[in-house]
């Protein structure tokens, strides 16, 4: 396999990993605060906190990994995206900082604070919105090159229907992924009440998810015809994604095999996300940067691939240990002391 394909596959996979774990995390923060407002806090917060506490820091690493990796494999992206994303990227960073630190203040600090939970919950919705602008910008049309200087066109971004469709999709997907995971987690914990609340969340966010993905298709066909045609060529992936979605909804509806239903949700997003990614190729930033043009020198590229494999050998057993201790330990999930 060619180096640039290995590189982009690794990165895309990490971004997908971030999409799943961060969605669970962002959504959980929002539900946590929402339940406080609707006075259902005592029902679902135990489940949410038992999941989040040991893993919140790990979630963050997926994102760091992606942006360090993309600059490593494709240094030219730093130049274009770095200049263009100063404002949206800076704001995303600001929100991530607020969210991460206030999670710790609220959960390890001395007392529960409504303000901390509010900041933690609300930033969880704005972060996916600001991060998703990266995907929008990658479609082209929001960056202009004049001579050697790269200019970002914020007004175009703010008025683009495509951009808003992506933001909408990002937010509702976060809520849907999170609710369907937490339904499963509450089910494992044997917490019927929490499961029922979370199940309604999952079902009510399922419709908006599908609708907004249709919006994205429509808006993309207006914005970047070439990419849209590429996607059309990969229609089977998007159809499989839809099938997985329907399967997941049926299982959640019937309160059956909730573990499998979450696997189907993951597959639904995997098919859509990889379908989108493959049809995006070879551009990293349309039309300026392609995977070939931005690739780092091959010595560095291979060094990165080797260190990636070495890193995985370290990470996979540790992640496995983490999951055994907290995710798949029935006792821990139920909140029983040993």
């Amino acid at each position, binding site marked *: 396999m060619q180096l640039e394909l290995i590189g982009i596959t690794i990165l895309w996979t990490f971004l997908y990993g971030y999409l799943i774990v961060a969605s669970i995390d962002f959504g959980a923060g929002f539900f946590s605060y929402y339940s406080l407002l609707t006075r259902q806090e005592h029902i679902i917060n135990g489940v949410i906190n038992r999941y989040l506490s*040991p*893993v*919140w*820091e*790990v979630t*963050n*690493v997926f994102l*760091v*990994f992606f*942006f*360090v990796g993309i*600059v*490593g*494999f494709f*240094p*030219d992206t*730093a*130049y*274009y*995206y*770095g*200049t*263009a994303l*100063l*404002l949206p990227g*800076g704001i995303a*960073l*600001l929100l*991530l*900082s607020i969210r*991460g*630190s206030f*999670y*710790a*203040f609220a959960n*390890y*600090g*001395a007392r529960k604070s409504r303000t901390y939970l509010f900041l933690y919950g609300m930033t969880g919705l704005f972060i996916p919105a600001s991060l998703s602008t990266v995907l929008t910008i990658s479609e082209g049309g929001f960056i202009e090159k004049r001579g050697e*200087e*790269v200019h970002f066109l914020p007004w175009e971004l703010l008025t683009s229907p495509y951009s808003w469709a992506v933001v909408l999709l990002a937010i509702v997907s976060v809520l849907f992924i999170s609710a369907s995971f937490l339904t499963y987690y509450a089910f494992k914990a044997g917490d019927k009440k929490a499961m029922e609340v979370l199940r309604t969340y999952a079902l009510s966010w399922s419709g908006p998810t599908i609708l907004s993905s249709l919006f994205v298709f429509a808006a993309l066909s207006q914005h970047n015809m070439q990419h849209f045609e590429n996607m059309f060529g990969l229609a089977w992936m998007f159809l499989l994604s839809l099938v997985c979605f329907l399967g997941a909804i049926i299982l959640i509806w019937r309160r059956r095999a909730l573990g499998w239903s979450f696997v189907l949700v993951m597959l639904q997003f995997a098919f859509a996300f990889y379908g989108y990614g493959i049809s995006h190729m070879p551009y990293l930033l349309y039309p300026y940067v392609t995977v070939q043009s931005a690739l*780092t*020198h091959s*010595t*560095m590229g291979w*060094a*990165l691939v080797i*260190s*990636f494999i070495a*890193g995985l050998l*370290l*990470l996979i057993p*540790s*992640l496995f*240990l*983490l999951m055994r*201790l*907290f995710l798949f330990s029935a006792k*821990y999930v139920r909140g029983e*002391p*040993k």
Partner: protein
Amino acid sequence: MDPATLSRILTAETLAFHIIWATIGVGVPIFICIAEGWGIYKKDPHYILMARRWTRGFVITVAVGVVTGTSIGLMLSLLWPQFMQLVGHLISLPLFLETFAFFFEAIFLGIYLYTWDRFKKPVYHWLTSIPIIIGSSLSAVFITTVNAFMNTPAGFEMTKEGELTNLRPLEAMFNPAAPSKIAHVLSSAYVTCAFLLAAIAAYHLLKGKRNVYFKKAIKLTMVSGLVMALLTAVAGDLSGKFLAEHVPEKLAAAEWHFETQKEAPLILGGYLDENQEVQGAIKIPFALSILGKGHPNAEITGLNEFPEDERPPLYIHYLFDGMVAIGTYLILISALFLILLWRKKKAAWNPWILRGILIGAPLSFAAIEMGWIYAEVGRQPWIIRGIMKVEHAATTADHVGVLLFLFSLLYIALAVIATSVLIRLFRNNSPEQELEERGIIL
């Protein structure tokens, strides 16, 4: 102000804020591990409680360290896109590896926090602290090699068009500056945390608390503190020798050493008059030659050998002096405490000694800041020494000012809130109460 200046301010501010938490993140796990291990070994619940309490505070500081670290990581590309475009080909390996180390640490921190009572044998829980130390120290190592690369770039050749060719990533990572920098960064982080934790206990003893818990905490941290402080001095000496050989203008600017000469003196304090003459300073003959080359007769390159637009600002002299003075103080106070403790037990707990230990904590953080500013400003005007100047690396985008404003607010808020959360966390729950709750009576 132009984007380059604003970018410099924002980067400096973020780093200055980050290194406070990062230092705690690198150093404190060592002491948590020592305390828990010693407690298990000696079957002394005081030390186990110490590890628990330190861990609780540590989590809050780690959170701030993680978010500011993420910020600086992304800001590298946002504020210095041309820098990352040029050297991304060369330094992405250590950056990438740092993420792995961070990942490793994050996983085991989660495990450590939530498994205090889950294992049958306490030693299993203690074992999970080892990967935290490995992860946090290794991420410091990797990120320091990146900074070292900016001081002494290596592992490539440059074509006439300014492209990098013939890349040797490992050589770039283990560049000449890396060993002495890594040694100095790690040892100074450990010594700073030793004093931070000792100062907390000293504060309580000064407040009139008598529990033996606090005395044990000071003994443990001061023994390790003295060792680390001595190691830091050795690492500092190595750095001096490294600078004299590889980055002479930085050493020369720090020492106001203008003319190349043998038997060079070391200058403490003083000021420069309008003729660039050193006034009112203490001169220690031969000391700079010894610091730089290990021989009183050795020749030290002066600042005048460098073109004027490639000289770092001269105020870094004070930062250098401050850092060295504090380092010396830390060695003296911890040594004094241990000698007193060894000779006649009571005198070691004299309030003046305790005050001396207490003040060691803010001083050592000040030294960390001064050392960093010295190292970074001493590289000016280069972002990569000899290759790229700072103004050519900065973003051309507008709005840097907006971000500077927002991030300044964020850092102020984080500093205030994190401190008050930490204070409240410990004030409402004293070690005495906890000892009683856990039924520990010795």
